[in-house]
């Protein structure tokens, strides 16, 4: 059944209504057609179809305002309890306008799909527009079709805008000529994914969303507040202007400092009327365990020689440069690459060689290093990885930071009869999807250099090898998040390969033992790193400095220990402000939740 079309609203016979509080519309369009057919004696329809039509309508009847009707329409999958509760709340209490702000990995897409389906089943939504980042378009289309049986279409050509359920990238939608077309239409429902990109009122994205005509609206974001309170105000105002009062009122009532709220209870109340945030710590959300194993790899004498030579070379340059870290970044990369593969080192050295002047004494030194590379016959780490892959005999994802290492590994695995496919950031969307398909299908191993890309979901795989560890813990967490997420039914096994006697050994120690990275919740890590950055420099740079300036292994060890201590101090700080009513703690809706320290290596985040 249609909601009253805009044009007709208010025109329905006023005064003729069963109750003063409602408008009443009685459809009479059929009378003329029936009369005409009667006058001409036909054509008449079939009695069986007539009866079937009534039966179909009976079956589809929405008998209750409250009960979720869509659940009986989803035989293909079962939403989790918190997702159903969210859908119910949005329907019953929020009237279909809400910010879904679950933590990463709890299935905001599912919640949105469930809500959309419910409104479709109830006949309240016939046309919906779903705006998402370009990289997620196809994934949304797939989920809506497969999980919910909603015939969503990816926007490709101008005419696809006319489909009932269109998924498009917001950047396309806001450009002419699409913009004008979309603004001329009414959408029963608008869904915007990654809505934290709408935090600035001056942007064209924000204004575009504001101008779209919509009945129901869902904004999805894992991080409703990233920097300051204004973002929160803007996001809520986009959904429901006035919910937090006017801008100046909001500032007067709720803002103590740019980043600090006040009158938390009232703010909390105002927020909870439009925003739902489920957290992993809420319980009832079952995650499988993470089982972390650090695997030691002994370098062959040749590899060790290369490592030492590169380390010496990098330090020498550092001293020459007058300890200027900024100019050293490519050399620090070299230092990290040497732990990964000789191929990675070689590529960087080669580029360095090309860049140095022909008469520079550097060239000879680089050439010396290349000689070291030449002497290496085997990659100890790759052999270890192969051993692990054979041992598990199951789908495995191997992460490396370096393109050259990736190439090498692909070749190496192929030589040993293991079907592996690559995945990297530079691939276009189609190729990425293709590689995913291959990995899901016949390939055993995926060798990936990129984990940050939203939208790789690898729940079907639960073995992960960190061939080398990034120095940025967020990247490690992103890697794990690809595999360890909602829908993963197995415990996730994470193998960290590290070479003894190198900086890697220390990194593993720092990440695993000192800061227990593998046990933290995504949000917590984020928070700590941000604090670290505020106090001094990013973790990566600190590590680089440490490596370049340390006088020996013991020195590095001391440095790492100190770093671990300061991170743990920040962690404790974070917890203290949380319990003392800091900005996040005051607003459970916004807060990130630190995990207990009691968990060992097996963790539920």
């Amino acid at each position, binding site marked *: *059944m249609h*909601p*009253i079309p805009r044009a007709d609203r208010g025109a329905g016979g006023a005064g003729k209504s*069963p*109750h003063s*509080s409602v*408008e*009443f*519309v009685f459809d*009479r369009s*059929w*009378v003329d057609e*029936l*009369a005409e*057919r*009667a006058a001409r004696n036909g054509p*008449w*329809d079939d*009695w*069986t*179809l*007539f*009866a*079937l*039509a*009534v039966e*179909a*309508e*009976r079956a589809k*009847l929405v*008998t*209750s305002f409250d009960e979720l009707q869509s659940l*009986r*329409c989803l*035989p293909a999958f079962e939403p989790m309890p918190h997702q159903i509760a969210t859908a119910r709340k949005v329907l019953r209490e929020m*009237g279909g306008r809400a910010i879904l702000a679950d933590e990463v990995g709890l299935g905001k897409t599912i919640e949105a799909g469930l809500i959309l389906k419910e409104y479709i*089943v*109830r*006949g*309240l939504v016939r046309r919906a527009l779903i705006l998402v980042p370009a990289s997620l378009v196809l994934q949304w*289309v797939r989920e*809506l079709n*497969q999980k919910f*049986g909603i015939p*969503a*279409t*990816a926007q490709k050509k101008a005419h696809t805008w006319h489909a009932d359920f269109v998924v498009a990238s917001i950047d396309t939608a806001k450009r002419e000529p699409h913009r004008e077309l979309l603004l001329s239409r009414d959408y029963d429902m608008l869904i915007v994914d990654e809505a934290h990109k709408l935090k600035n009122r001056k942007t064209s994205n924000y204004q575009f969303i*504001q101008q779209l*005509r*919509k*009945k*129901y609206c869902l904004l999805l974001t894992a991080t409703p507040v990233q920097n300051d309170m204004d973002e929160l105000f803007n996001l809520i105002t986009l959904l*429901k*202007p*006035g919910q937090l009062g*006017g801008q100046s009122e909001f500032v007067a009532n709720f803002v103590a400092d740019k980043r600090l709220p006040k009158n938390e209870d009232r703010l909390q109340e105002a927020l909870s009327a439009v925003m739902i945030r489920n957290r992993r710590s809420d319980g009832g959300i079952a995650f499988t365990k993470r089982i972390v194993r650090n695997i030691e790899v002994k370098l062959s004498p040749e590899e060790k020689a290369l490592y030492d030579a590169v380390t010496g070379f990098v330090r020498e340059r550092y001293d020459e440069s007058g300890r200027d870290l900024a100019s050293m970044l490519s050399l620090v990369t070299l230092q990290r690459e040497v732990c990964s593969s000789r191929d990675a080192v070689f590529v960087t050295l080669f580029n360095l060689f090309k860049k140095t002047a022909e008469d520079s004494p550097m060239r000879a030194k680089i050439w010396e290093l290349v000689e070291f590379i030449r002497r290496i016959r085997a990659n100890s780490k790759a052999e270890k990885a192969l051993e692990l892959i054979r041992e598990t005999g199951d789908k495995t994802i191997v992460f490396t930071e370096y393109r050259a290492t990736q190439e090498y590994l692909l070749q190496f695995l192929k030589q040993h009869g293991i*079907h592996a496919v690559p995945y990297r950031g530079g691939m276009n969307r189609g190729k990425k999807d*293709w590689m995913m*398909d291959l990995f899901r299908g*016949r390939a055993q191993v995926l060798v990936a250099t990129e984990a940050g890309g939203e939208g790789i979901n690898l729940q079907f795989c639960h073995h992960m090898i960190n061939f080398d560890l990034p120095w940025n813990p967020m990247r490690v967490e992103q890697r794990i998040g690809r595999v360890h997420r909602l829908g993963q039914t197995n415990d996730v096994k994470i193998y960290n390969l590290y070479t003894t006697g190198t900086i890697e050994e220390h990194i593993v120690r720092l990440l695993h033992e000192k800061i227990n990275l593998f046990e933290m919740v995504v949000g917590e890590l984020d928070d700590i790193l941000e604090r670290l950055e505020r106090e001094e420099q990013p973790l990566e740079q600190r590590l680089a400095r440490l490596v370049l300036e340390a006088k020996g292994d013991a020195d590095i060890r001391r440095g790492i220990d100190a770093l671990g201590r300061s991170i743990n101090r920040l962690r404790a700080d974070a917890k203290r402000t949380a319990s003392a009513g800091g900005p996040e703690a005051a607003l459970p809706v916004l807060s990130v939740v630190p995990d207990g320290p009691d968990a060992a290596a097996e963790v539920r985040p």
Partner: protein
Amino acid sequence: MNAKQIHRFVERYLDATGCAILEKSPAHFKVKLSPAADRELTNRPYYWSFVDRTGVEPETMTLLLVTDPAKYDAMTTGVKAGGGGDGQAAQAGGSGPAADGRQAAQTGGSGPAADGRQAAQTGGSGPASQAVPPGARPEAQADGAGSPAGAPGAAEQAGMAALSRSFGFVPAGIGARVPRDDLYFGSRRLEQLFAAARRGGRFVCLFQQPDERALHPYDSLPCTPWLGVNVKVGFVCDMKREELHAFGVSLATGAVVEGFFDRLQGMKLTPRLPANVHVTGASLSLKKAADLIEQALMRKLKAYDYGWAAAANGRLKEELAQLAHYYEPLVESAGEGEKESIAAQYEARKEEIRWQLAPRVVAEVVNAGLFHLTGLA
């Protein structure tokens, strides 16, 4: 609707539209569509306009409609357990000569095909088949595709995967010779059947077949024309509840009855005027009859509880007040250039809120018909 009801529904639809059922069980139909059903269900407007313009003999599609997927799968894999042993061996062993696999695929019949389908469901060929060297397997599977059950094999799967990479999703069965559709409540194909029934069964004109034994050959029974209307009433605000009412109005007397559709179902109805029956004149116009129905509905609705509407109006009022509180000072303080756009924004937002929340009762007619009945006066 449970699986059984769906099965009944589908059967009656196929029957009514004159489709040829090639194969059926309590869990499925394999059916060659009639032109009428093909036009409704296969979404091929270009093909049909081609047929209409050139007058060629249309080639309709064959569908596999599965009304009870679990049962159907159990049935087909049961067949496989008997004949598909070789097929499995070929898949697991892999190293065996490819000819083996092919033979297995042929003799196994639905065996490898069922596997292929399973693989398609898990989204690929699945981890179980990894041990197979890539050389041997695709052939066995590609042959599986040729098997009568028509499940997608490796080659087809690759094609499908390519399509779905481009479009995100491709409904199962496009490109397959006999696309399979699982008909569960809420599935697209069933929705389509519902819609097709509704489009195909809007207006009828029928006569009640009198009980023949009771009739004297020279008698002529009078029958009264009735207007029967099925109305779906929606109680709508941001939420919705529905009711279905079947009204009948005697065009002779103007009497209105409820539950008319259920009464009709107990009768024998025919589209032709039966022998020994004559139609008495109608004294009411259809328009007048429609008025009577509207009045009857209105009387009924007046007795309802409108607490939900009052609540919705309350929310609406609250939201409009909140909006006014936000926008009015903003419009006031805006500079000349901005004033207009902010005011327009305000209006648009007010309109949205009314659209979302304003309570209304909408009565929509599902279908209607003229029924000439001997039993009812």
